[in-house]
C-alpha cells in the first residue's frame, strides 16, 4: 500500500520536474556550535516550482531557506543555485544574491529611506540602472503590490501588511529568478495576512520560482507544487499538497497536521 503511494508521488514529482533544476541541495549539514540544525538535507527545485516548507519551530526551516542565499553558511555538502556552486567565493555569493530575492518575517525595510528609495537602491547600485529607469521599475512593482500612492512615505508610516508588500516589491525590482519567503505573514495582524498572501498568489501565477516557509496551510494547499515537512533538522516528508494533507505518510507529519488542522 505505502509502496504504491510513494510510486504515485514520485510520478507526480517527475511531471513537475520537466523544466530545469534551479536549486540543488546535496547532503547539506549545518551546525550552530554543537547543535546539529540541518541533517543530510537533499532536494532539488525546478524552475517555476512553488515549494512550501513547514514544520514545528526549531526544526530548521528558516536556516534551510537562508542557506540558499548564504545568509547562513553550510558546513558540509554542496548547494548549487542557478548553475553556480555556493562556496567561499564571494563573487559567486554576490551573483547568487542578485538572482535570489528574499522576504523576511520582520520586513527589514530601510527605515531611513522613502519607499521609492528602498526599491531603487538595489537596481541603481547593483544593477547599475539609471535613476529614472529604476524609479519607473519601482513604480511598476508598487502598482503590482497595489500601493503606488505610498511611494514617498517612510516605512515607519506604513502598516505591517503594506510594509511586507513593499518588501516583496523591493525584491522583485532586482528581477530575481527565485524568491524566498521566510515566514512572511507571521508578524502580521490577521487582517493584513490576506493582502500579503494575495500578492504572493499573484506572484505565483506569473511562474516565479518560490520557496516559502509558512504556517499558512490554506496557502500551502492552493499554491504549492510540493510541500516539505521538516522536523528536528530533517526533511521528514516531501509530498504534493493533496497527498500531504489527505494522506500524510510519516508519523510526525500526521501528528503535526492533527495539531494544526
Amino acid at each position: 500500500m505505502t509502496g504504491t503511494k510513494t510510486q504515485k508521488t514520485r510520478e507526480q514529482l517527475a511531471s513537475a520536474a520537466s523544466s530545469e533544476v534551479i536549486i540543488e541541495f546535496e547532503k547539506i549539514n549545518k551546525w550552530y556550535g554543537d547543535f546539529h540544525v540541518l541533517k543530510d538535507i537533499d532536494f532539488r527545485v525546478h524552475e517555476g516550482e512553488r515549494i512550501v516548507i513547514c514544520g514545528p519551530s526549531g526544526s530548521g526551516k528558516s536556516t534551510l531557506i537562508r542557506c540558499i542565499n548564504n545568509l547562513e553558511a553550510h558546513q558540509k555538502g554542496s548547494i548549487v543555485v542557478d548553475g553556480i556552486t555556493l562556496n567561499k567565493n564571494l563573487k559567486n555569493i554576490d551573483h547568487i544574491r542578485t538572482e535570489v530575492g528574499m522576504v523576511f518575517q520582520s520586513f527589514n525595510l530601510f527605515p531611513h529611506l522613502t519607499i521609492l528609495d528602498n526599491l531603487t537602491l538595489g537596481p541603481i547600485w547593483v544593477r547599475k540602472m539609471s535613476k529614472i529607469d529604476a524609479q519607473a521599475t519601482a513604480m511598476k512593482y508598487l502598482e503590482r503590490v497595489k500601493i503606488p500612492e505610498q511611494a514617498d512615505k517612510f516605512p515607519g508610516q506604513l502598516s505591517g501588511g503594506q510594509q511586507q508588500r513593499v518588501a516583496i516589491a523591493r525584491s522583485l525590482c532586482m528581477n530575481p529568478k527565485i524568491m524566498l519567503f521566510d515566514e512572511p505573514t507571521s508578524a502580521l495582524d490577521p487582517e493584513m495576512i490576506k493582502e500579503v498572501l494575495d500578492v504572493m498568489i499573484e506572484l505565483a501565477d506569473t511562474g516565479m520560482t518560490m520557496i516559502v516557509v509558512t504556517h499558512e496551510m490554506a496557502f500551502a494547499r492552493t499554491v504549492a507544487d510540493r510541500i516539505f515537512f521538516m522536523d528536528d533538522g530533517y526533511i521528514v516528508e516531501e509530498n504534493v499538497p493533496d497527498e500531504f494533507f489527505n494522506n500524510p505518510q510519516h508519523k510526525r507529519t500526521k501528528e503535526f497536521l492533527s495539531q494544526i488542522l
Partner: protein
Amino acid sequence: MAIIKTERTAAIAPPLSETTALGWMRKHLFSSVFNSLLTIVTLFIIYITVKELWVWGIADAVWVADNRRGCFDINVDGACWAGVIAWLDSIFYGRYPREELWRINLGLFLLVIWMVPLWLPRVKAKISIGLTTVFLYPFLAGYLFSGGDKSISMQIMVTAAIVCLAANTVHSIIGVLTGRSLPEFLIRLFGKKNAPEKSQRYLLLGILAVSLVAVYMFQMGWNVENVSWTRWGGLFLTLVISGIGIASALPGGILLALGRRSKMPVVRVISTSFIELFRSVPLITVLFMATTMFPLFLPEGFILNKLVQVIIAVCLFNACYLAEIVRGGLQTIPRGQFEAGHTIGLGYWQTISLIILPQALKHMIPNIVGNFIGLLKDTTLVSIIGLFDVLGMLRSISKDLPWLGLHKEPLVFGAMMFFLICFAMSKYSRHLEVKLSTGHKH
C-alpha cells in the same frame, strides 16, 4: 447582552489648565504649599546670583581705560573689560602679524562660502561638496595661513582647491536659480544637450583642464609672506586644531569601529588595541608623548613641527573615542538590515555606507556632537605644552604689564566664548536630529 455604541462624541477642547500660561504655572509651579515654597526660594536664589553678576559685569564694569590702574580709578568693584578689549585681537588671532590678519579672515570666509551650499535645498551633489571641504579646503587654507614658498605638490593642491571652490560656488548659484547642476548647465550653455554622452564628457573635461591650467598660471604669481606656526595662536589656533580634529575624527572613528567589528582577526586585533590604548591614556599624556617621544620614532632629519604633532595626536585620540561611539551606533542596527542589504545584492561597503551608517550615525548624533564639543574644549590643553591657543592668550593678559593681575575678566570672557560656540553646536545637533528623524522606528 450586546452593547453597541451608536453615537459619536465630537472632539472637545482640552481643559484650560492645559493651554493657558496661568494654568501651566498653577499645575507645575504652585501645585501644593511645599511646591510653592520651593518655587519662591528658587526664584530668590536666582535673583541674588544674577543681580551680583549684573552689578559686577555690567552695571559697575569699566569699558574704557588705559590700564588696570585706570580701571580701579573709575570703579574698584566692577569688572575691568577694558583689558579684554585691548587684547581682543590677540585673543582671536594670537601673535599673528597684525597686517596679515586679512588672510585668516579670508580663510574663514572661504570656508563659509565653501560650506553654505550644503544648507541650500536646491543644490545637488552635496556629498561631493562635503568631501571637497574636507579634502581640498585644508590645502588652500593651509597655504593662506602659513604662506611662504609653495612646493610643486602644494601648488597643484592649491590649484585644485581654487578650481573646486569656484566650481562649487557657480554650481550652487546655478542650483539655487535653476535647480540644475553645473555640468548640466555647461552642456546646455554649449548647446550639446542632445550630443552623445562621450562628447559631453569631453566638453566637461576640456573645461576642467582649461580652468586648472589657468588657475595654475595665476597661482604661480600669487605669493603670501611666510608666517611661522609659532605666531599662530588665540581662538584661531583653537579652531584650526579642533577643526582638523573634528573633520578627521569622524572618518577615522568609522574605520576603527568597522575594523573592531571586522571578521578578519588581524584587522580586529589591531583596531581594538589601538582604540583601547588611546582611550586608556589622558589626552595631556598623549600630547606630551606626541611632542617629546614621537620625534624619536621618525627617521633622522625628518622634523615635524610641534603644531603638526599636536594635531596628529588630537586626531588619533578623538578618532578612538568616536570609534566607540560609532560602534555603539552600529550595534543599534538590527541584523536584518545587513541581511536585507545583502539580499538585494549590495556588497559589504555598499551595505555599510548606504544602509547601516546613515542609520547608526543618525542615532548617535547627540553623542558625536557631544564628543566634538569635548574636543573643542580639550584643545585648550595645548596651552600646557606651550602653544598659545585661546586659553594661553587669555592667561597671558594677566602677565602683560598694563594689565598685570587681570585674571578674572579674560577667563569669564573665554567662558562666554566657549559657551556660545558649544551651545550653537549643541543646538545645531538638536536641529539635525529633528530634521533627519523619519519619525517612526522600523
